[in-house]
């Protein structure tokens, strides 16, 4: 049993894996510790195919949690939600992490997204600017294999790129092309191809090309979409040790408040202690702050890395509202990846002083799954039912408004009195999407969505309720980054202000959410952290 390693990475998701590989390439010794099991892709694929139709839209249904590593899952209480809105993110505790079931969407932040405070007087500014992050975005796009448009007008952000995407964007389906054209001609809005971590028309990273299963969520059956599980064999070949089914429950501090060890339970509830020199906790924006709070000790009575009292606060997400409407002409969405185009330009503007920005995502999930129930509810049977399913599959569109959200210290993760299977306190989150988002829904998003619906000839548009938001899977803010140790948890390298050898990279460090999915920003920050860690290890 490994009891010591130069670098210890807790979590085997995209952030942990990228950091681990960077350290291995630099010649460092790396131990990765994963709470959940390591499963084969074939198993997940069959889990998914065996689900009843009604459960298939649930991204986690194919990933039943291990007793010792619970995650949000239908019928299992793991994450408590309190407050006016329901906080209901999906993440999985499996080797490879939640990129198993991400769509692969890879929007960058814009320079403005990183300076909300100085430009619009709301939220927080980042600890650095876009130009600082840009080279790490480039590294991320190469590492994950991100395909994206070559036409500058289709690129996001709309500014000169310092490096091209490593692969051309995936073609838009017939319906997506039609939607794009209607948006442009009727509304002057540009629906652009989504940059995504998916091999388009060619193998990349020794993984095959996308063959358009339209199955990206919950699992890419062929590994054409990047997920961190695809990199684990390679990390081991480079010398990493990966412990699975090992739940880290305590981070131990020592002299000078440096981290000296982590403690984990194996699946038999036996505790083990592993010492190291450099520690990376990359368990996502819920489990990382939970672990910090669980590890409170005499030196750190409010929890590890928490002298600022910001650990667990400023929890953020992209609150969503979906619109489904019926078009006059057939669109036949569902060819290609599940998210393949969207309108990003609605996410920028001076209005951000008053309300949140919005990104409109044209969902490209094949429609038959969702509309089958609706068609059956119509009371039709036999051939008439078949025809109704066919009609609605062709003519129903689902557009999702994804809002940015401001960091609010009241949106806070704490430890519940409830315990999980191992006896560890469950995470509890107070959740209020905030007036900034609600105002946007009423004043900005609903009117825009209505224009979009009308442009495609829909007569059944229904505005979304300002009370009802669903949760994305984009967990941000709980270990927020900043230059000031009094108001933030980690510095620009995702290193904790309180502990010189502890890094908390990932979504938790993000100081603003913007509207685009958070994964590649998390990964870019992971590269920054890895560079800092390696230079510290080499200097030591």
């Amino acid at each position, binding site marked *: 049993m490994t009891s010591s390693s130069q670098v210890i990475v807790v979590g085997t998701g995209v952030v942990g894996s990228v950091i681990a590989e960077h350290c291995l390439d630099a010649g460092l010794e790396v131990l990765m510790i994963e709470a959940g099991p390591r499963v084969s892709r*074939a198993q997940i*694929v069959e889990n998914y195919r065996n689900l009843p139709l009604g459960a298939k839209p649930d991204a986690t249904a194919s990933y039943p949690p291990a007793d010792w590593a619970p995650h949000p899952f239908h019928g299992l209480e793991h994450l408590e939600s309190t407050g006016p809105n329901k906080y209901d993110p999906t993440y999985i505790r499996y080797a490879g992490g939640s990129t198993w079931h991400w769509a692969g969407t890879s929007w960058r932040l814009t320079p403005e997204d990183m300076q909300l405070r100085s430009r619009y007087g709301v939220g927080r500014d980042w600890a650095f600017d876009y130009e600082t992050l840009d080279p790490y975005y480039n590294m991320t796009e190469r590492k994950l294999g991100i395909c994206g448009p070559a036409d500058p007008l289709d690129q996001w952000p709309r500014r000169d790129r310092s490096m091209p995407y490593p692969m051309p964007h995936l073609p838009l389906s017939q319906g997506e092309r039609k939607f794009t054209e209607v948006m442009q001609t009727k509304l002057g809005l540009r629906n652009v191809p989504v940059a995504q971590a998916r091999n388009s*028309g*060619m*193998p990349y990273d020794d*993984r095959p090309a996308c*063959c358009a299963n339209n199955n990206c969520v919950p699992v890419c059956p062929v*590994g054409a979409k990047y997920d961190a*599980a*695809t990199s684990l064999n390679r990390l081991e070949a480079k010398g990493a040790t990966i412990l699975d089914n090992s739940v880290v429950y305590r981070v131990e501090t020592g002299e000078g408040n440096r981290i000296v060890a982590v403690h984990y339970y194996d699946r038999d509830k036996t505790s083990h202690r592993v010492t190291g020199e450099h520690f990376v906790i990359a368990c996502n924006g819920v489990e990382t702050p939970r672990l910090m709070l669980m590890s409170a000790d005499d030196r750190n009575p409010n929890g590890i890395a928490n002298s600022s009292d910001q650990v667990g606060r400023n929890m953020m997400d992209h609150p969503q509202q979906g619109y489904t409407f019926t078009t006059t002409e057939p669109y036949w969405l569902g060819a290609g990846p599940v998210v393949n185009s969207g309108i990003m330009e609605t996410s920028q503007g001076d209005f951000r002083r008053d309300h949140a920005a919005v990104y409109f995502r044209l969902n490209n999930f094949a429609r038959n799954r969702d509309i089958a129930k609706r068609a059956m509810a119509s009371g039709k049977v036999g051939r008439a039912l078949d025809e109704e399913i066919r009609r609605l599959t062709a003519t129903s569109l689902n557009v999702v408004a994804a809002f940015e959200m401001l960091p609010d210290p009241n949106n806070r993760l704490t430890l519940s009195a409830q315990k999980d299977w191992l006896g560890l306190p469950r995470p509890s989150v107070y959740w209020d999407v905030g007036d900034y988002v609600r105002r946007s829904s009423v004043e900005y998003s609903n009117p825009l969505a209505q224009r979009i619906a009308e442009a495609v000839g829909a007569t059944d548009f229904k505005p979304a309720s300002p009370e009802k938001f669903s949760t994305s899977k984009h967990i941000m803010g709980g270990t927020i980054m900043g230059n000031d140790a009094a108001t933030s948890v980690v510095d620009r390298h995702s290193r904790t202000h309180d502990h010189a050898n502890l890094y908390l990279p990932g979504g938790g460090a993000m100081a603003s959410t913007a509207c685009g999915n958070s994964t590649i920003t998390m990964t870019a920050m992971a590269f920054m952290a890895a560079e800092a860690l390696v230079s510290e290890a080499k200097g030591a």
Partner: protein
Amino acid sequence: MTMKTTLAFFALSASMAAAQTFPDDLVERGRYVATASDCVACHTGPEDKPFGGNHRIASPVGDIWATNITPSTTHGIGNYTEQQFSDAVRRGIRADGANLYPAMPYTAFARITDEDMHALYAYFMQGVEPIDEPSQQTALAFPFGLRFSMMGWNLLFADSATHQDDPAKSAEWNRGAYLAEGPGHCSTCHTPRGMLMQEDGGQYLAGAQVGPWFAPNITSDKAGGIGSWRKDEIVAYLATGRAEGKSQAGGSMAEAVSHSFSKLTADDLGAIATYIMDVPAIAGPARFDLGTAGNRTAEFRGIADPDLTDLGAGAQIYSANCAACHGYDGQGTKDQYYPSLFNNSDTAGKGANNFVAAVLNGVNRKTDQGHVFMPPFGTQTNAFNSLDDGEVAALTNYAMNQFGDGVTTVSAEDVATIRAGGPTSNMVKVVQTLIAVGAALVAVVLIATVIVLRRRKRAA
């Protein structure tokens, strides 16, 4: 001019004089001959330095390492004269006089004309970047480690005649014969070998196992060979590695398509096809038009612990690992980028070995038409599902039953053999035993002679 620069000038002139300067068009012609001969496939190692050697060739008698054939004067063939170069390529004799092993297809390259040989030399001296790095050396077991043992082999099996046109055949046929028998060295893989690893002339192009892959029968037999293929299908196969609804190239044929055939002129591919279509038929089991679309999903879908038959178990492995690309019914995609598994030579005839090899090793083929890539299901770092021998056998048996000839089966042991790189020859053991028995016999005769002589002496 100072003394120093004058000396430098003369030194430079001397080195320039030493290197022959060949005209560009000759070098280009040599490049084409090298492409047609696919030198790069075997002489380039995993470091991807063209012609730098370090490429392991698993032979039935042990690993043979293809060497550095760049014009490096320290580690390559930079010091070879044209005669030495020609002897190595066409006779299998190195500059130092030692014999090459016939993993280097010099028995085929012997057909290369003097003109093409001259061009090839020009290309290797002048068109290839020298790499001053050593290549791994071959060390075979006794007695094959003794390179001179190849001299006897050459006497028995090597034919040193260059290509001669057959006046009874068309110019196109003759061009095809030259390319296929000579530079293209088709028979090196496709002709089965005898006891001593010599090509069996009576079975010319009738199909042979090469490492993990089976190089199939490409004679004109309609069922077992490719006699049912149209000329344009053969040309398309050579150019892209795929003949729709029939077959696709994997393993070293994928390399040959990627590096060699796809880069030849349309006329030359047509010539090869014309010649190949005329190769005398040798019968073999049918391998096209077999199998049907279908699945056994009902045996396990939605059932918590299905009680699976062997075929059902294979079908479930198929569903989990293969169906996403090749279709739930094995039908492939409309454009056949992902080929159908029925009507496919890899699930019929002697195709089971290739099916197993494709599953374990994947497929990697790059032409101007795109990059065809099937991930491996072995233990490679990019194998997302590592199937064990039993699982691969179950999958293969399902595929052969549903999509193939309906009769062929493989065992987990068969899969293990392919996983290990293909069947090994027992030739090493046989020859070593023969030598040992021979030595023992000699000893017995000697002892007997001594005894007889002594007795005679005593008697005398």
